[in-house]
């Protein structure tokens, strides 16, 4: 296989894509075969829950592997250095939009939030623009998007993408306008300026393929257990929780408080995008409103307590509070508007 990748990277990618699609098509029929082999009554709670589990687990894992591989390759084009060079000195407005878009394709891990934030600030990326990046990077996550697309169709995925970007752009813009540079920790403001100029590094296609593999090993390796747990919970809800159970808590019949409460519950929670999608799926299937569920999902992914703790090293408490407040408000607005409109 190594020889194939070296000699014909495009050929390798083509064959891999065909194999992937072929495998994907067999998953649903195979899940029925598996569950029919068990001594369960067709249509019973246990039957439904297990069929969901047998179908969703390999499906989600296969999707994840495919998407993470693709993103790993795209990420190799958009290193933080290159993104920084693209954003340094940009006007607000345009800068916020670019930062939010770049947040999608630049590799980002919460542990790097601080060095990245500082690196941006040192090179002259405006504070608001940096925040737009910091909001979009974890939230508008290729994993979340692909899974939303696969499970709910392109409209919902597109909505998540559009709304997520809007929150990132507008929140970042607002924070920029508030002129809170004074609320950066003092040692950050005293750091030397850095040039953002970046000589492109040229990688070959086969090197990018290896970068993709490394990404799959790292991310799927980290996330698969969460996915399994999320699907098991989703399967339980799917099979055992009565239809419309969520309607009273998160559905059309719930009071206006269901949106803010969902967002507040989501803030201290943190799971990666993959783990939460099956829960979202089960909630929606049981009558929760789309706006409330999306708001919940966004707040779980975008605002994470561990990341806030890490950011405390560079941001004074007031700036963190503003950050959380603006983003949470944006997410709640999304939830409300959605519920009203859809």
């Amino acid at each position, binding site marked *: 296989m190594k020889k194939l990748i070296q000699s014909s990277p495009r050929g390798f990618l083509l064959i891999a894509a065909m194999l992937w699609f072929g495998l994907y098509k067999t998953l649903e029929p195979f899940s029925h075969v598996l569950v029919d082999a068990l001594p369960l009554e067709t249509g019973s709670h246990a039957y439904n829950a297990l069929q969901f589990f047998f179908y969703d687990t390999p499906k989600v894992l296969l999707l994840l592997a495919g998407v993470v591989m693709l993103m790993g390759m795209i990420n190799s084009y958009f290193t*933080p250095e290159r993104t920084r060079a693209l954003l340094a000195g940009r006007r607000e407005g345009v800068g916020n939009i670019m930062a939010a878009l770049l947040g999608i394709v630049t*590799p980002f891990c919460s*542990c790097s939030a601080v060095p990245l934030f500082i690196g941006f600030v040192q090179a002259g990326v405006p504070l608001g623009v940096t925040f737009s990046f910091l909001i979009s990077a974890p939230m508008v996550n290729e994993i979340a998007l692909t899974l939303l697309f696969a499970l709910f169709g392109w409209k919902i995925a597109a909505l998540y993408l559009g709304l997520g970007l809007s929150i990132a752009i507008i929140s970042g813009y607002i924070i920029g306008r508030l002129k809170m540079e004074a609320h950066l920790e003092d040692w950050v403001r005293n750091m030397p300026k850095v040039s953002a100029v970046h000589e492109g590094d040229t990688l070959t296609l086969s090197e990018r393929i*290896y970068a993709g593999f490394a990404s799959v090993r*790292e991310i799927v390796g980290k996330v698969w257990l969460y996915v399994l747990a999320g699907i098991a919970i989703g399967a339980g809800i799917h099979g055992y929780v009565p239809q419309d159970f969520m309607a009273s808590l998160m559905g059309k019949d719930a009071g206006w408080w269901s949106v803010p409460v969902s967002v507040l519950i989501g803030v201290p929670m943190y799971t990666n995008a993959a783990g939460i999608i099956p829960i979202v799926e089960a909630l929606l299937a049981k009558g929760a409103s789309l706006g409330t569920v999306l708001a919940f999902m966004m707040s779980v992914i975008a605002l994470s307590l561990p990341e806030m703790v890490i950011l405390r090293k560079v941001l004074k408490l007031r700036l963190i509070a503003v950050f959380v407040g603006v983003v949470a408000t944006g997410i709640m607005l999304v939830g409300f508007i959605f519920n009203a409109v859809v």
Partner: protein
Amino acid sequence: MKNIKVLGTGCANCKTTLKLIEEMAKATGAEIQLEKIEDMQAIIGYGVMSTPGVVLDGKVVHAGGVPSRDKIFGWL
């Protein structure tokens, strides 16, 4: 003797990188002075924007993600 610093604040990838370099140095018999830098300001001082980062004899040779074995081999 080469001086290798692994820059990271303690996430899983940083620990993996350190372990990998240690193992490979032992396997190849290379003599290295290996340090782990966890202090945020020191890490930023190297201009690294994503951890784990690796500094070889004072020069940053890697940033972001666990380095491949081939890459580590090139440093030893």
